[in-house]
């Protein structure tokens, strides 16, 4: 995976895409994004697949090497029929972001219904059974991701309310009721992330602070361009931004990122930090396929701090 001059900080796997609709064992429209986790050496993706009825649901995919995946036929999370959730999920569920916390795996996903888009929090011990816990936002809120530990005694969640297009943090004592909100990152006028931004990958704790991969959207006369950037947030007060990359780390350039149901999109909801320090960033391209890009922890931290390629 040699890095080419003038290309992106994130290096694309040369065999991209990792998963296309050819790999899905049933008929579907397209696929968006994948949350991911590595458990006992096995790579597990939670892929959002838009079924032929037009509603997205969340499916498991498994791999031994992180490159070749087997996708399951039955959804892991589909629109709920439970009376408490039904009207909030009736138009589909998508964008699962996985956080390992207290020996369990918490999943924040988007639910679409007649009242708009809300965040739902659930959990699983083994990715066999999934337990819905609560709707944890009001509409329209997207891009929800739980921090992997309590911060100053409270659970913390990143979210993107539609109004203002910024990334916010909310805190909770019980994971069910949330408050003490503060704004974390806002769109930057004139930049690639000028339209709206949201958390991509759930924050990873590093020595430098919380490493946040986020997506940024620019509006053009022909639609939107969605790219991925990086920032480092203060460990004990993540509303404090320590570093923020000036330039994106991944931009749509390849045909599979340019052309699909939603053109010019690279969008991630998960990454895996390997023991070697390598970061595997799984990203959705053009709402059409799942791709893999890599970097290393030290490289990305160094980049956030220096950002020398911006001028």
């Amino acid at each position, binding site marked *: 995976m040699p890095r080419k001059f003038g290309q992106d900080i994130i290096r694309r796997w040369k065999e991209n895409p990792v998963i296309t609709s050819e790999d899905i064992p049933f008929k579907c429209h397209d696929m968006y994004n994948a949350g991911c986790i590595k458990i006992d050496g096995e790579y597990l993706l939670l892929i959002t697949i838009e079924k032929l009825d037009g509603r997205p649901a969340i499916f498991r995919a498994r791999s031994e090497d992180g490159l070749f995946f087997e996708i399951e036929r039955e959804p892991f999370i589909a629109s709920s029929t439970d009376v408490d959730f039904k009207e909030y999920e009736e138009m589909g569920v998508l964008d699962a972001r996985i956080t390992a916390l207290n020996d369990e795996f918490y999943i924040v996903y988007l639910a679409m219904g007649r009242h708009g888009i809300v965040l739902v929090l659930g959990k699983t011990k083994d990715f066999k059974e999934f337990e819905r816990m609560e709707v944890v936002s*009001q509409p329209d809120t997207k891009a929800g991701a739980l921090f992997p530990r309590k911060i100053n005694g409270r659970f913390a969640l990143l979210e993107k309310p539609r109004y203002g297009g910024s990334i916010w943090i909310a805190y909770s004592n019980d994971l069910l009721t949330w408050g003490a909100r503060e704004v974390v990152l806002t769109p930057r006028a004139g930049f690639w992330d000028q339209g709206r931004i949201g958390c991509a990958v759930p924050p990873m704790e590093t020595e430098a602070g919380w490493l946040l991969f986020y997506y940024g959207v620019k509006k053009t006369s022909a639609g939107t361009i969605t790219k991925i950037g990086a920032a480092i947030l203060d460990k004990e007060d993540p509303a404090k931004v320590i570093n923020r990359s000036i330039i994106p780390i991944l931009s749509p350039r390849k045909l599979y990122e340019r052309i699909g149901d939603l053109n010019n999109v690279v969008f991630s909801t998960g990454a895996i930090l390997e023991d070697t320090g390598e970061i595997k960033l799984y990203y959705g391209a053009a709402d059409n396929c799942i791709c893999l890009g890599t970097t290393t922890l030290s490289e990305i931290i160094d980049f956030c701090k220096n950002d020398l390629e911006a001028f």
Partner: protein
Amino acid sequence: MVRKIGRDFLYRYEENPILTAEDIPFRCNTVFNGSPVKYEGEYLILFRVEGLQGYSFFALARSRKGFFYKVDEKPVMLPAKKGKFAKYEERGIEDPRITFMDGVYYILFTAASAFGPMIEIAKTEDFKKYERIALVSSPGNKDGVLFPEKIKGKYARLDRPIGNDIGSIWISYSDDLIYWGHSKAVITPRPGYWDSYRIGASVPPIKTDKGWLEIYHGVRMTASGPIYHAGSVLLDLEDPSKIVARCDEPILSPRENYERIGDVNNVVFACGAIVEEDRTIKVYYGSADTSICMAMGDLDELIERTYNG
């Protein structure tokens, strides 16, 4: 105060408006959207003043009988200039709604900033000292009202987030007024009706034997802008996310010149009401974002009318 046939359910106080910019002892642009309360034998209205610079803050008006008001010399709540709230109030504070509970007057209001409108809670016990408690919503939310008692042991509020470009009324619960959740959509706009575009809670819920009476505002969008009416709905006493009955017709609509003409035309926007011992309900409302008015009705008649749809 003669009620005319073919006019609104609520009848207007004949000396309306009760407060205009002329009544304010300092320069301002307009006054509107005030919440009334009876305190130590006086009627008080905590209301929104839009300053000449364009952002809003709160002033207090006092009256012995509830008709002729005198406004305190100075504003009582200004946008925070320092501390954690300053960033989220830099474009002003708006639309206070008072709820009395356990000896405390809670004030829910809208904090305005570049990040968008958010709901904030403050409290006072004496209308001298006001203390901010917390910001309690994401941005893009307005029209927060607190229920006057706990429901199944939890504080409850109504508010108005926007989802799918639809402004509906939601309910949320809290143990401590700071962390909120268990949110559910309660009342949604009705296509074709006077409340077809957006709705929001107006008056803090009033407990009645038929359910929680909520006087809300409904907006219809027209080619020449929105029209704001007031309507009524009854919510289940035990589970206020359930609607018992909802009135088809508004109870107050912009008709008078002071409601039709102002900074924002065609607006009646209630933020509070007082129920008198004789069961008269006095609804205080901002008119055309320019003055404060009052309209009255018989509470039992209003409940019956709402209950019968």
